[in-house]
């Protein structure tokens, strides 16, 4: 066998093991918990990265926070409790879905209010 072909086969085997070990890192008793894990890790921002969730990051802190989310899901914590655990330590910055309070209210309802105001002005001008 050509040395390059042999290297390719070894590399493929190594890659398969790497992918398998990655997917087996967190084992969930049921699908609902696994779905919650993927949703939560996509909604928590990696505190070490410029942008990106902990799900999309391989930074050591992102790996640690994924482990924390996993442990807390297994412990029966709710999504809110897990999010609070993260934001208590890393601030609102770490939550991609900002809470409905303080300045964040403007972010949530601002676009709707502007739409209503301009809709009203637009139709009044048309008359």
């Amino acid at each position: 066998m050509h040395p390059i072909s042999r290297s390719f086969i070894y590399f493929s085997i190594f890659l398969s093991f790497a992918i398998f070990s990655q997917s087996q890192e967190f084992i969930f008793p049921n699908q609902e918990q696994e779905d919650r894990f993927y949703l939560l890790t996509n909604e928590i921002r990696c505190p070490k990265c410029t942008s990106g969730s902990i799900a999309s990051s391989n930074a050591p802190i992102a790996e640690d926070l994924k482990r924390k989310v996993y442990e807390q899901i297994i412990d029966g914590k709710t999504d809110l409790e897990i999010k609070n655990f993260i934001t208590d330590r890393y601030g609102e910055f770490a939550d991609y879905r900002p809470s409905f309070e303080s300045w964040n209210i403007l972010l949530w309802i601002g676009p709707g209010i502007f739409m209503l105001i301009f809709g009203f002005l637009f139709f009044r001008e048309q008359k």
Partner: protein
Amino acid sequence: MQLSKILAITLLGVFFIFLGKLILDDKTPSSNITGKPFPQFQQLTLDGNSISHEYFIGKKAIVNVWASWCITCLVEHPFLSERASEISIIGINYKDDKSDAVNWLNKNGNFFSTNIHDPIGNLAIDLGVTGAPESFLVIDGKIVSHVIGELNQKKWEENFAPYL
């Protein structure tokens, strides 16, 4: 007034409100721990003794998160060594092998009052740590100030000196 003028003025207004908020809200987006009590914990030191959050009650100390694999920790080590004569410095040995940490201290000097071994990084997460090095000023069990990255003269004067 024309609708386009109202629209332009409103959008400019919104832009400046958010710009002002962005400039005034000068907080580090990686830790929410300043002003809070030191998190509860019960762990072992590198010497094998038990230590808990109660250690900090009635004390003034710098808590420094470090590791033998951390290059910046080696860079800030001489500066911390100088400060150790003024204030007690407690280490949190972060995600490190115990023997590597002990060898590192033997080689580079050990000015730490004690070193909490945090091999998994659980205590560090409770402190809102994102990596090593990071330093905290703790006064009577309360976290007063926090520095991310290398602790040097400038950061010391800005973040820690006003409280000492």
